[in-house]
């Protein structure tokens, strides 16, 4: 018995690292990224697997493969869409920067012609102090979180490289005080000379620059996050470059996350003297996010959509927690992974994905069991048949209405993020249909409490959508004209709405045909006309929202393409170890599901509880310092006392359950109690919930967490 219980430590456990196994040979067969070998999958992904006959299994396997393939396709589509959107947004500023780079290079070249003599002389000839200026661009990011802009700078690097520049993308990691100037120089050389050297010597760069045709193009160094660089290293780097600027005309691009003052504050004045600065501004994250939402989520580009709760969660993450595009994209990816993992019917998504709707895009039979189909009134088989194409139609209507609304809201800086969130809300939609939209939807709309993706971000009463609609009435004629033009564009291809918009535009044209010479009366009348027109426009969009803006969650079969499990998404995206680990300890019974420690009220220490759990429960009674002696005594009391009670009880009523408990060792020796105490303290120390005794307070440990 004792030998079996002894701590079993293998050699591997004590090695810093070891190879567990090498890739099996089976992977030598060309393996599609989506398909896994069926042999390997013992536990099937689909939860609905009840019958185990072979054809069913085969079907499931097929479905699973197509689910994985659909996931792959959808994600590739989304990824490329996002890339395009960002590319378009950045195109202007990139071109601007490129123009500046070329101009600066021209300026350097004209000031002093480079020749081999100068380049090969041992030390650069500095003619006068003002001449060794480095052209520097400060690229101001409008987000203090620089993660989003990492990709932007990478793209900028690619963009400039495509225009012939010699590029190096450095980051604050290269400018650490620890590795010093050698560190950044080394990465610079690695990138420009393609990793052929590991020496940190700028003269290598100088001689390389003179080779072949290299000197015909500028060397551009991007430093993504200047604010986080070590000030002295960066200053030294700039001073060094300025000494060599005649030989190697380096152009610097510095990303600034804080303010334009930052470079002056960070760099030494000597280094600042050598900079010849220009400024550029990157787009605001909200604008980028709106563009991405429009392309990815509003226009159904991929056959994947998210439900209202998920949208609200993502929105809240962006607005209140993170504020970065990166985390938004990550959330979308996580959502899509979870969706295809969880939804067995997602193998049929393909119908929605294809540009032209295939004939065989009916939903499968099983789809009838979906909750959204239960309330279908029309004959079910028909609903199945029209399947994806019908859904696509509804979605197109929805997205064009949302985009029209966004056009209206743009003047008031209403973000698509907010509009999108509200447009997805099935409750609002139902209210809208029962109520008149003009009248405020419902001020007493229940405010739901999802813990983190809640509604706490206050929405002005009446809802964003009706507020947006009201704005139309106040539009001046010129703006209204522009708006109608935009609507015309947005609704193209959606006949149902497009016709009405066209009609409205015709009316507008008629109004404009009024004779240009206007008397005062006419002006008034004209105003009246345009008032009428805006009234009509407002009526149109109201009608559009009421009739055509059907959120995805109100459409039958939406479960197939729509991910709604916000809790799951949240759990996967942001773990909460501080809370969860404490809960594990305090409610261990929930996980272990044992019969012995089941009490009505939790938090009552019993001897059968997991030792560490028991100790942590006891610790709850203490203040920030726990007296080890007291803690030990209460622990010992609990573990021994209940055993006695059980023994006593078992004599009275020897039920089989009780007997099992008495089978445990009755006498707890001092040594074993101390050992258990020690181990529990160690485990709590590993979780970080305790701080160990200090020299000054040898008899106390410190509690770290109070409350979850």
């Amino acid at each position: 018995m004792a030998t079996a219980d002894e701590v079993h430590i293998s050699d591997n456990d004590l090695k810093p690292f070891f190879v567990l196994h090498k890739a099996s040979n089976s992977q030598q067969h060309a393996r599609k990224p989506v398909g896994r070998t069926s042999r390997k999958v013992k536990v099937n992904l689909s939860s609905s697997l009840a019958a185990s006959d072979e054809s069913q299994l085969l079907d499931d396997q097929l479905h699973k493969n197509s689910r994985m393939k659909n996931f792959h396709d959808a994600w590739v589509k989304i990824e490329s869409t996002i890339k395009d959107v960002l590319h378009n947004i950045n195109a202007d500023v990139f071109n601007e920067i490129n123009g500046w780079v070329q101009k600066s290079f021209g300026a350097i070249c004209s000031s002093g012609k480079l020749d081999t003599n100068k380049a090969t002389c041992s030390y650069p000839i500095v003619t006068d102090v003002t001449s060794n200026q480095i052209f520097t661009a400060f690229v101001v990011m409008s987000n203090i979180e620089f993660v989003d802009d990492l990709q932007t700078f990478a793209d900028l690097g690619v963009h400039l490289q495509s225009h012939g520049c010699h590029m190096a993308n450095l980051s604050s990691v290269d400018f650490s005080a620890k590795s010093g100037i050698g560190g950044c120089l080394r990465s610079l050389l690695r990138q420009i000379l393609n990793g052929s050297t590991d020496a940190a010597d700028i003269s290598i760069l100088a001689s390389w620059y003179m080779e072949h045709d290299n000197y015909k193009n500028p060397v551009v160094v991007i430093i993504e996050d200047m604010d986080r660089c070590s000030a002295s290293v960066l200053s030294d780097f700039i001073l060094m470059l300025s000494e060599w600027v005649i030989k190697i005309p380096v152009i610097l691009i510095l990303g600034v996350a804080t303010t334009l003052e930052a470079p002056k504050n960070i760099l030494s004045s000597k280094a600042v003297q050598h900079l010849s600065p220009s400024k550029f501004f990157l787009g605001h994250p909200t604008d980028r996010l709106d563009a991405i939402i429009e392309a990815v989520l509003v226009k159904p580009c991929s056959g994947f959509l998210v439900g209202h709760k998920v949208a609200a969660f993502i929105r809240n993450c962006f607005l209140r927690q993170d504020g970065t595009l990166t985390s938004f994209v990550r959330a979308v990816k996580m959502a899509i992974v979870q969706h295809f993992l969880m939804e067995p019917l997602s193998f049929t998504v393909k119908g929605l994905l294809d540009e032209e709707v295939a004939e065989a895009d009916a939903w499968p039979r099983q789809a009838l069991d979906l909750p959204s189909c239960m309330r279908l009134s029309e004959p079910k088989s028909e609903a199945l048949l029209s399947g994806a194409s019908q859904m696509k139609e509804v979605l197109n209507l929805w997205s064009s209405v949302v985009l029209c609304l966004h056009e209206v809201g743009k003047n008031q800086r209403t973000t698509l993020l907010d509009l999108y969130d509200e447009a997805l809300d099935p409750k609002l939609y139902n209210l809208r249909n029962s109520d008149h939209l003009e009248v405020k939807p419902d001020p007493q709309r229940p405010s739901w409490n999802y813990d983190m993706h809640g509604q706490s971000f206050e929405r002005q009463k009446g809802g964003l959508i009706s507020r947006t609609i009201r704005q139309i009435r106040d539009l001046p004629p010129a703006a209204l004209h522009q708006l109608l033009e935009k609507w015309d564009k947005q609704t193209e291809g959606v006949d149902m709405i497009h016709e009405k918009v066209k009609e409205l535009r015709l009316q507008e044209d008629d109004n404009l045909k009024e004779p240009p010479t206007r008397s005062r009366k006419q002006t008034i009348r004209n105003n009246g006309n345009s008032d009428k027109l805006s009234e009509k426009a407002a009526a149109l969009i109201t009608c559009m929202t009421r009739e055509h803006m059907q959120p995805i969650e109100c459409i039958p079969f939406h479960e197939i393409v729509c991910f709604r499990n916000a809790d799951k998404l949240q759990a996967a995206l942001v773990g909460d170890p501080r809370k969860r680990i404490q809960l594990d300890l305090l409610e261990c019974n929930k996980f272990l599901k044992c019969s012995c420690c089941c009490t009505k009220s939790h938090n009552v220490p019993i001897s059968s509880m997991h030792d560490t759990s028991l100790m942590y429960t006891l610790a709850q009674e203490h203040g920030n310092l726990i007296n080890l002696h007291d803690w030990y005594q209460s622990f010992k009391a609990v573990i021994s006392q209940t055993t006695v009670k059980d023994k006593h009880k078992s004599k009275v009523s020897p039920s089989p359950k009780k007997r099992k408990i008495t089978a445990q060792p009755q006498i707890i020796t001092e040594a074993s109690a101390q050992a258990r105490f020690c181990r529990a303290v160690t485990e709590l120390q590993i979780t970080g919930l305790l701080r160990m005794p200090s020299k000054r307070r040898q008899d106390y440990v410190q509690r770290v967490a109070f409350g979850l």
Partner: protein
Amino acid sequence: MEDHDIDEDEFEFSRNYFLAKESGKSGKKSARKLSEIDLVDEQDLRAEVSKIEPKHEKEIASLIDSYKSLYNEWAFELQYGFGLLLYGFGSKKTLIEDFASTALTEYSVIVVNGYLQSINLKQVATAMAEVLWEQLKLQPRSASGGSIKSQQPFNSRSMDDLIAFLDGPHAPENESFVCLVIHNIDGPGLRDSESQHLLARIAACSHVRVVASIDHVNAPLLWDKKMVHVQFNWCWHHVPTFAPYKIEGVFHPLILAHGSASQSVKTATIVLQSLTPNAQSVFKVLAQHQLAHPDDEGMPIDVLFTSCRERFLVSSLVTLNSHLTEFKDHELVKLRRHSDGQDCLYIPLSKDALEKLVQEINQ
């Protein structure tokens, strides 16, 4: 019902507030000493720890077993570029290794034991590169002829080179991954920011996938946004196992064995006995002074020197200093600044312990 819950929450909150704020000085605080417990000898304690009878063995086994159904999900997430981060109370070592050996047979798997005190990440990266190289070598040449450069032994390459190799381009038809399993990525050997940055860079490589576990409640503080969103790209999974932290806890001193007076006395005696009789006597002078003046902050060096010279223990300050250096190295003596600005020496032991120690060396 709901109101009741809110009340309870509020009560809980205020209770926690006062518990946390309870100052050390308040009279209520228990002042019982650990030494009041009849402590078992450390060796016996260790033996006893290894013999602790497991509780809920069956339940724990079935709990861990229940996570098996998630393996496919995890493998899927891993394949699509997420890193798996498992957390929850209990050792996840066996769980992760079981997952790696059943569901990740297509990857090469390298395990890092982050609970150890020191880990050389360069060696880890080298091993990863070697494994990956073998893997790529076995592939049909057609697609990836260029990616395998002339082979320079990996262990002489720089970290940047290794990372560049791991981040190499994929052959279109055949993706090769090396999976890095890191037990306790928040462990003592990896807790510094340099290691974490290095791990993040490795995790971001195109040929690398990471499965890691954390146990510390504040582990997420190790990472900034770039690491979390871009490099590690964690997908969190809450998997409490309640399995004992056997190996993870081995390196933690036992609370009832460590820091207690008897223990320090024992180690101090051993150290002192290994020193010369003169050095022992110098220590005794200091100890007696400290016992005689318990309220003093310590003994000034010149006072110690005079009294030692009087007893013919040392002849010069140099000899005394060499003794003192020895003491300080073994943490037998510490230096602190006296309130009048003078440096003075003291022995970092309680009065009881010191008395015991003096007795021991007198024997």
